């Protein structure tokens, strides 16, 4: 288990280039993840690795192929200073956990890291970094394992009843 460190504004074209959007299988998509921008990722990533990035991770296209490619590569957690809106929601919907951590820049590349979402921190190199909780309305989807599983449990939805 290691961290893969990225900078700010990592867009979904970088995560999975447009020419692979005809593919929907997560494992096949994973073989092209970060192709052209970080070629060693697809070859070396292993189950349980964690992505750590700066601001605005996943900006750009709404392509769900991006979180699927990361999920297919065995990634379960993405830690960033902030996430682009559509990617954040797509990640949760497909069962990945995007974690907002204002100290993400301090976490080095290639280091072991433990994630404790329930306890509210991540640990790397003996240092604990606080993380932000997932918004309450999305936590239910996280707990279900994704939006498909969540939706299956709903017989119907009542519109405009979820005001908080």
């Amino acid at each position, binding site marked *: 288990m290691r961290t893969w460190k990225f900078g700010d*504004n990592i*867009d979904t*074209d*970088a995560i999975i*280039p*447009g*020419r*692979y*959007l*005809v*593919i*929907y299988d997560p494992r096949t998509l994973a073989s092209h993840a970060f*192709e*052209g*921008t970080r070629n060693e990722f697809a070859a070396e990533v292993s189950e349980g690795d964690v992505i750590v990035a700066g*601001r*605005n991770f996943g*900006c*750009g*296209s*709404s*392509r*769900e*192929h991006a*979180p699927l490619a990361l999920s297919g590569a065995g990634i379960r957690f993405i830690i960033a200073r*902030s996430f*682009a*809106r*559509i990617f954040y*929601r*797509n990640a949760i*919907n*497909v069962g990945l956990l995007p974690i907002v951590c204002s100290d993400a820049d301090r976490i080095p590349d290639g280091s072991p890291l433990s994630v404790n979402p329930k306890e509210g921190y991540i640990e790397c190199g003996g240092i604990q970094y606080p993380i932000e909780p997932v*918004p*309450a*309305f999305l936590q239910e989807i996280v707990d279900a394992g*994704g*939006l*498909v599983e969540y*939706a*299956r449990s*709903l017989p*119907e*939805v*009542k*519109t*405009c*009843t*979820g*005001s*908080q």
Partner: protein
Amino acid sequence: MAATLVEKIFSRRCGHPVRAGDVIMAPVDCAMIHDITGPLAVQKFREMGGKRVFDPEKIVLLFDHQIPADSLPAAENHVFMRRFAVEQNIHNLDIKEGICHQVVMERGRAGPGEIVVGADSHTCMYGAAGAFSTGIGSTDMGFVLKFGALYFRVPTTIRLEIEGAFCPRVGPKDLILAIAGEIGADGANYQALEFAGGTIETMDMAGRMTCCNMAVEMGAKAGIVPPDGITWEYLRARRQVNPFTLSSDRDAEFTSVHRFDAERLSPKVAVPHNVDQVVDVEKVAGTSIDQVFIGSCTNGRFEDLREAAEVLGNRSFHASVRVLVIPASRLEYLKALRAGLIEQFVAAGALVEAPCCGPCMGGAFGLLAPGEVSLSTSNRNFRGRQGSAESLVYLCSPATAAASAIRGEITDPREV
């Protein structure tokens, strides 16, 4: 209590007042799916136990990213979506009409006060029609197809007030690039961008679409223009309308208000590899280019083609540049044909392609080799966006694209 335009839209559709920050399950008035994100949305709809879509009349289905099918997998995806359309009794526009966002607008499928979603990030363009419209992923779209509703966190709003008239050969694309440069690539994350002021009030629908289209490049959930006479007139030709007033209250709460002077704007270029890396055209003038793309949902309308054609005149494009002109839709193509613009472009040496996304998403034709440089009227210049990760994409207006295509290098359109 004072409310923003976006808060009013959600309040109106929900039947009770909602505020920014509220999380609501709101009904969806129109949902758009295309060939790239549609197949996965259908798969998720089925995995959710979906049998019949919520309302086939409220779904816009078409293919625009990889058309005509440019590979066997693309052809198979098209067949998959065609079967779904037949099975669900959804009218399928197939490959025939053009780019999804232009087609939704020109068919009047988005209107003031409505909530529209699309499985494509540039869905925020329909804010030009006074709708709250936002891009969503395929799984969210699967949910919408099944339930006809979706969770929304009502966004806060950043207000942009733009005053003044554009100088010759400066226009809406230069304005939105200038705004992106100031707000930044994530400066409007999770928020709505409201466009207001005299410049917007006199701007045509094509220009408003260009502005709203790029709201997502600042992270915005939606771009929106308060509906006015221009909006209602546009819609009247496309659907039944009952004009009403919808705008932010004077004392509504905005996250911030930014003011721009259109008169002082010069032509802008976004340089590789981020949309907020915006400079005056003089700064990059002389940069050699291999390909010029005039088109996309941002700048593929008749008005954009006319702007490029006016700069071109009866000249030819530079011999070393490949010029691709792609109208945003079949109807825009027809307008350009009838006005003689297509003949003008072809005579000047351009390749005019049938309406589609073209090179913008880097998945179909017009790809760039390593080291090549593209100047494009589209919306994204991310590394590898139009082909090789070793290529470069610059973004500009149709006028700057045409001027540069004549000279073979990035050129100030006021100089040609």
